[in-house]
């Protein structure tokens, strides 16, 4: 393993009042790593993901991204980092309903200064790969949940980030469409060395990824082999 990880968290703890959502979690992602994060509902997966993406400052511990410690960066710098280097997918509500799908996908490109026609072409390609090119010109408020979700994935991959954090990216998709989404993510990881961290309840989704990290009650469980 190389000295600096792409993403590394040490001793992360997050509490919401009495609830300990994450307890001294350690996790490391290198370029090209594909990790599935599983665990029962409420086990702290989303919370961990938010910490890694730099949206939620942990109560304890530190998160490093490409050699920078996220906790020491200002909010604007972290936003910029997410915009350029990370792709983040959530299950619901992260598209702008008034914009068309393709405009939604163009957002990260436009914000990083790409020309409009270039951005548009890249966005259409991404939507095409995810099988939603046909509804690209519809407003995000007027497409199905699964179509919106795939557009959200397109938005997370369109700028070819260094890492993609996806929180249940296939939550409202059938198996076949979920496969298509995972194929896009995995091929990005293979071709560009993008690291993947995918939260899922679905083992078929997890089976696209090389490593399985399980959480229980806020703690990351030892890999199964180290048990007993």
């Amino acid at each position, binding site marked *: 393993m190389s000295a600096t990880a792409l993403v590394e968290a040490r001793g992360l703890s997050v509490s919401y009042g009495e609830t300990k959502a994450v307890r001294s979690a350690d996790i490391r992602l290198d370029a090209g790593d594909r990790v599935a994060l599983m665990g*029962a509902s409420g086990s702290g997966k989303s919370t961990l993901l938010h910490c890694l993406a730099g949206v939620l400052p942990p109560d304890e511990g530190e998160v490093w991204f490409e050699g920078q410690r996220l906790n020491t960066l200002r909010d604007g710098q972290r936003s910029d980092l997410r915009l350029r280097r990370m792709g983040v997918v959530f299950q619901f509500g992260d598209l702008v309903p008034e914009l068309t799908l393709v405009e939604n996908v163009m957002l990260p490109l436009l914000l990083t200064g790409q020309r409009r026609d270039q951005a548009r072409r890249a966005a259409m390609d991404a939507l095409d790969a995810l099988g939603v090119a046909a509804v690209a010109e519809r407003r995000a408020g007027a497409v199905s949940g699964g179509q919106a979700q795939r557009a959200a994935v397109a938005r997370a991959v369109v700028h070819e980030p260094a890492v993609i954090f996806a929180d249940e990216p296939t939550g409202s998709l059938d*198996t076949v469409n979920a*496969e298509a989404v995972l*194929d896009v993510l995995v091929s990005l990881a293979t071709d560009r060395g993008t690291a993947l961290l995918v939260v899922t309840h*679905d*083992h*078929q989704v*997890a*089976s*696209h990824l*090389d490593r*399985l990290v399980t959480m229980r009650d806020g703690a990351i*469980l030892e*890999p*199964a*082999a180290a*048990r*007993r």
Partner: protein
Amino acid sequence: MSTSSVLLSLLERSPAHGYTLKQDFDLHFGQRRPLAFGQVYQSLARFERDGLAEVVEVGPGAGPERKRYQITPDGVTVVDRWVYTPQDPDVFATSSLFARVSVALMSGRLAESVLDEQRAVHMERMRALQQQRRGAGPAEVLSVTYELAHLDADLRWIEDSGKRLDALRAAFGGAS
């Protein structure tokens, strides 16, 4: 499901007559088909021959039902190995998983480990299948996804059971 492994593990709880063993078995594992007495005595005889169990008491009268058996340290090792060794994720052969988990619960072994390791093996197989699927032709995709779907079902059971373990342990503990 390996009936004899289950019988041996039942013996682990306490020395028992063949008759008691059959009762126990039927209670925990025989929902679908009660065990025949013959199979019980056959297994016990084999345990004795292989040094996995020994006779600790012979009652009055004649016939196998007089003997009380007790597990040997070798027998415990065999049960250990059986419980903790994940099975090949063969689509049709996972039924022993259920038995192994039950035994682990009854015997106070780590049922979580049984589940974890089976999960790991299943996942490994699924990864291989996904790999295969990506380069596969249409016909092959069908068979690969068929297996994937079944493994997925197993895994769902593994997850569900993992969440129920505490309740189950209490129930099994109460029964023993």
